[in-house]
């Protein structure tokens, strides 16, 4: 039973079922509408890719948002110049992000530790600043790159797709990329991405990346050249980011410079650490938590709170609403900050650590119960 649960196939089936049924089980907590589902899947891909670099090698990139941004811009240009079909957009974006990652990675990986982090940060911030201002002809600056009626869309024109006086929508051979169909498309790619990540985690290649994390110097002494491994991991994770950027543009055809700002890079770092770096599922949990706060908690206002607490006696309702309104709506940042602190204080290793502990506890209670399908990497001091 235990062995069975560890097999790739079983993990993938369980993962796929959970992801594809997300609209049903997320609706009760108010997160079952298309946009947030798409965001979960897209940022999930972003974080999974980031985790391949950070979780396995320990190299903390503070500039991964740049690849997300590059992916988005490439995708929107593909929509504008070629076709509204998302397939070419996704391929071009992933490749383009890969090229950027190759260049930036090649330079940044000459250094390690915090020097590496600052190099990646510097590249990302330069991309952001330039995209916001001088590169406006390419990026449309602050307003963001949007579709217009006057776009050429050469391929669509050749295919004889009629031009109407309203903007065309993104599609996959006719399947709309907005709404739930957009989510399922992202979800399928998330599952594929997860599979790639699983394979990497469990391959000799993944082992070598982990070895770099635990002691790079020793590996170098043995005559092992770590650079190609690091660079390939960097490029793979950059391509994941580019794919995520392309999907953001596919589900919502707009690309803005702020996607590349350091706060956006910081967000994926926080997601990964919060969920549990180096674990397969952890980053996804981190994504879920942060995006849920950003979209749902920020939207709770006082009248909504009154309804939540309406079962309490009047005076208590007032008290509860007064207390909780500091933590929702405009105060959602406070909740997030508090959560970061609580998680890391009590659960070194992130939310996944909590789940591992919980499952161990349950196991000791009910001997022989099932194990959670997670892969906890031994906690080595990095």
């Amino acid at each position, binding site marked *: 039973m235990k062995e069975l649960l560890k097999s790739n196939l079983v993990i993938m089936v369980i993962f796929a079922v959970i992801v594809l049924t997300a609209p049903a089980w997320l609706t009760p907590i108010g997160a079952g509408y298309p946009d947030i589902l798409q965001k979960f899947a897209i940022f999930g891909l972003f974080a999974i890719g980031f985790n391949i670099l950070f979780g396995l090698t320990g190299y903390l990139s503070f500039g991964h948002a740049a690849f997300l941004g590059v992916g988005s811009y490439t995708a929107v240009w593909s929509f504008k110049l070629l076709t509204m079909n998302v397939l070419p957009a996704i391929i071009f974006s992933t490749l383009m992000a890969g090229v950027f990652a190759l260049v930036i990675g090649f330079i940044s990986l000459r250094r390690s530790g915090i020097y590496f982090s600052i190099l990646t940060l510097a590249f990302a911030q330069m991309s952001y*600043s330039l995209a916001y201002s001088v590169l406006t002809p390419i990026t449309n600056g602050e307003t963001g790159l949007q579709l217009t009626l006057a776009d050429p869309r050469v391929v669509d024109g050749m295919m004889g797709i009629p031009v109407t006086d309203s903007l065309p929508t993104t599609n996959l051979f006719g399947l709309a990329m907005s709404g739930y169909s957009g989510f399922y498309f992202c979800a399928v790619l998330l599952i594929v991405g997860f599979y790639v990540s699983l394979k990497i985690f469990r391959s000799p290649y993944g082992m070598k990346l982990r070895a770099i994390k635990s002691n*790079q110097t020793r590996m170098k002494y043995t005559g092992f050249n770590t650079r190609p491994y690091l660079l390939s991991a960097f490029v793979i994770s950059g391509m994941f980011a580019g794919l995520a950027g392309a999907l953001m543009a596919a589900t919502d055809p707009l690309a803005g410079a702020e996607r590349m700002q350091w706060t956006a890079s910081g967000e994926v770092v926080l997601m990964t650490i919060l969920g549990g770096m180096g674990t397969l599922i952890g980053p996804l949990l981190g994504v879920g938590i942060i995006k849920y706060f950003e979209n749902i908690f920020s939207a709770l206002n006082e009248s909504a709170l009154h309804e939540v607490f309406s079962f309490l006696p009047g005076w208590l309702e007032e008290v509860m609403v007064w207390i909780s309104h500091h933590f929702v709506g405009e105060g959602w940042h406070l909740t997030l900050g508090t*959560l970061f*602190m609580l998680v890391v204080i009590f659960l070194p290793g992130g939310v996944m650590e909590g789940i591992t502990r919980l499952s161990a506890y349950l196991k000791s209670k009910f001997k022989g119960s099932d194990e959670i399908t997670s892969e906890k990497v031994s906690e080595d001091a*990095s």
Partner: protein
Amino acid sequence: MDEILLQILNGLDKGGAYALIALGLTLTFGTLGVVNFAHGALFMLGAFCAVSVQQVLTISKRVKDESITFFDAYKETPYLELWWGDTGAMIIDYAVPISIFVAIPIMLLIGVAIERGLIKHFYKRTHAEQILVTFGLAIVLQEIVKSLFGANPIPTPAPDIVSGSAAIGSMLGLSDALVYPWWRMIYLMFAAVVIFGVFAFLRFTTFGMVVRAGMADRETVGLLGINVQKRFTIVFGLATVVAGLAGVMYTPILPPDYHIGMDFLVLSFVVVVVGGMGSLEGAVLAGFLLGILQSFASMNEVKSILPGIDQIIIYLVAVVVLLVRPRGLLGREGVMED
């Protein structure tokens, strides 16, 4: 010529601010081994010490404006002015300098509390966890300040006598057009004094010697039977005070809002790393270098050749420095490299 001189002054001034913020950050890095993402928030708290002092000093007698009937609008006269006349007005005028003396004990207290309550539990944790917990702390501190003071910038002017510009050109026998704000010169001098103070403290006191030894080799110092823990607390407190003072003194230049620390956070990390991890001299050097280069990159003559260069110069310099010198300007081997 005047233009060049002015830009050098601007650069020194900016550099002073960068160096001051980076100094505290590199102290915590080097000594405690902690990546403190809340350092910007400490700068912000310092700035709000000045805001609080000003608000306390200007507690006012309110006279309702009767012409406005729909809500209560007041003509406000501070009690200090009512009681002590011109003396009171002068005290209010000097709110920012007065705040320095208020900020030192308050920031020290905050620093010690944060170290005792939170940071000390994270010495042995991974850098990733340190980042998450200090970032969380920074957000919480920001949100508290936002709920108390709002999100808009709050004006905290310098004393009237130094609020304008000094005609340094005519003083030095140069062009009359050479003027520079008094407060910015004061800030530069203040930064220099604080930086020299911190250096002297670390160089000429036994305590400082232990701290420097700790920066070089923490384990050995611990083995010598020295109470490293207690010294760590004091170092963190010192870093907090330096950050806070930088914040207090910056308020007349940049009216503070709750987000001001986050705006400086990334920059201060870049300064520290360009200077080299674990090197106080490096942080100061990098601060001034980046400040001056940023000023020159913003000149119209430069921008017309390289549009947008002023926006990226800091990061560009960071990349170049780190590629030429692997551990920054004055960094030591083995600090924060894994």
